[in-house]
């Protein structure tokens, strides 16, 4: 039997985690190692965040955690305590984001399965750096795999978003 260590939090099943999703406070009773991806898709029913490789190697499940892109499949419930999480649904909660507008106009997608994650990464990039250099765009998108487009139309969409002031979301 393990000696009880004071000041050490211990949690098995029935662990409670509280965070905000797209501005709404959420409290869930889940296993602490449950993935944020499952919390979002299964527990909260927000299916815009996609499941694909499940080990942080494709970017389909990209969300913002405290404003920075992270892979929801790598992030565990306990790591979200107190965090502010924004999913693709939150990006357009107040109307179409200029980045989404640019993706639509340039056709920066085909099957669309990587698109939510791609949009999240671009939104984060432009929020931090409204006029990124080409290398900075490429680095920011290096963790988002797209199998359909060959990236050319995605880069055109990003450049269009930059030209149109894609860092500013009016709503």
């Amino acid at each position, binding site marked *: 039997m393990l000696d009880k260590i004071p*000041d*050490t939090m*211990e949690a098995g099943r029935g662990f409670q985690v509280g965070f905000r999703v797209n501005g709404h406070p959420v409290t869930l009773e889940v296993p602490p*190692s*449950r993935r944020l991806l499952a919390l979002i898709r299964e527990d909260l029913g927000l299916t815009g965040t996609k499941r694909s490789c499940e080990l*942080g190697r494709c970017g389909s499940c990209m969300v913002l955690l405290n404003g920075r892109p*992270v892979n929801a*499949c790598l992030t565990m419930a*306990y790591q979200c305590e107190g965090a502010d999480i924004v999913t693709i649904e939150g990006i357009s909660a107040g109307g179409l984001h200029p980045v989404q507008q640019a993706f639509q106009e340039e056709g920066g997608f085909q099957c669309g399965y990587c698109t939510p994650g791609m949009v999240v990464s671009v939104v984060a990039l432009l929020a931090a750096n409204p006029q990124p250099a080409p290398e900075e765009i490429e680095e920011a998108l290096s963790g988002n795999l797209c199998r359909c487009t060959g990236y050319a139309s995605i880069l055109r969409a990003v450049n269009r978003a930059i030209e149109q002031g894609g860092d500013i979301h009016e709503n």
Partner: protein
Amino acid sequence: MLQWREDLLRTPVLYQPSTLEEARKLKRELGAKAVYAAGGTLLRTLWENGTAALPEALIDLRGVAGFSGVRHEDGHLYIGALTELSACRSHGEIAMASPVLREAARGIAAPSVRNIATIGGNITCGYGDVLPALLVAEAELAVSGPDSSPWVPVAAWLADRWGSAYDPETIVAGVRLPSASACIELGGRRFEVYRKVGRREAFTPSLVTAALVGTIGEDGVLRGVRIAAGGGSSRPHRLEQAEALLEGRRFSAELMSSLCETVHEEYAPSGDAFATGAYKTKTAANLIAAELWRLLHPREHSPEQPVSPGEMASE
């Protein structure tokens, strides 16, 4: 027995110690059933790939006092183990103190993974891509705690990590680098280069990583050269014979040739499913020699007269 097995489902119990001693004590009590976790990105990858089973317990190090932050301390730059790789990539003080570390961080996984993954985790696995950079930066690690333990040079820690007597309770609490001011010593031109070669242009596991630092004097003499190589899941290490070969020498074709031969003798990683050991060795030798060639070569050649390393070497 722990209560978690009462349930059929394999859900690790989470422990969130607030001090290093608590964390170590937990690990001591729980043994192999428990793993330390910080960002957890490597763990999740191992679990998903079936390389490692989901453990019975996770010991979350993120709440441990003193593991966070980047600060100057005693003429060093201290980087807490919980510092994310994205911070290593973007932090101004780190870039000043160790351009090689910054560049190493840039090449690891992708920005979103670097937002979770920590420098402590990259070090602790024993083969992370920051290690060659830390080796040439002469970094030291706080191995049990920032206060209670001596600072251990990275090379010494790696020897321990790869040895048979590695203590699984070990926690890397932080890294310290000689601060930028301490590096400006010998005069001349300082260089810091880090290169990574993988199987694609980005977001790739490494096959070969190489880091080199040093200075080139006004007289063209190399001083204080430190070189390290690693990559894949090979143990990274300093290339001391290569360093010794270069110390106090000026560029020459013979020197570059000898350098390559020395790297060949000194760096012999094993092959894997994707590259032979010979390829890795040749790549390391080529990258190191080519970077030195670039550093040591005057740039007055006009673009109309392209030169090859061979031609340059025969001057």
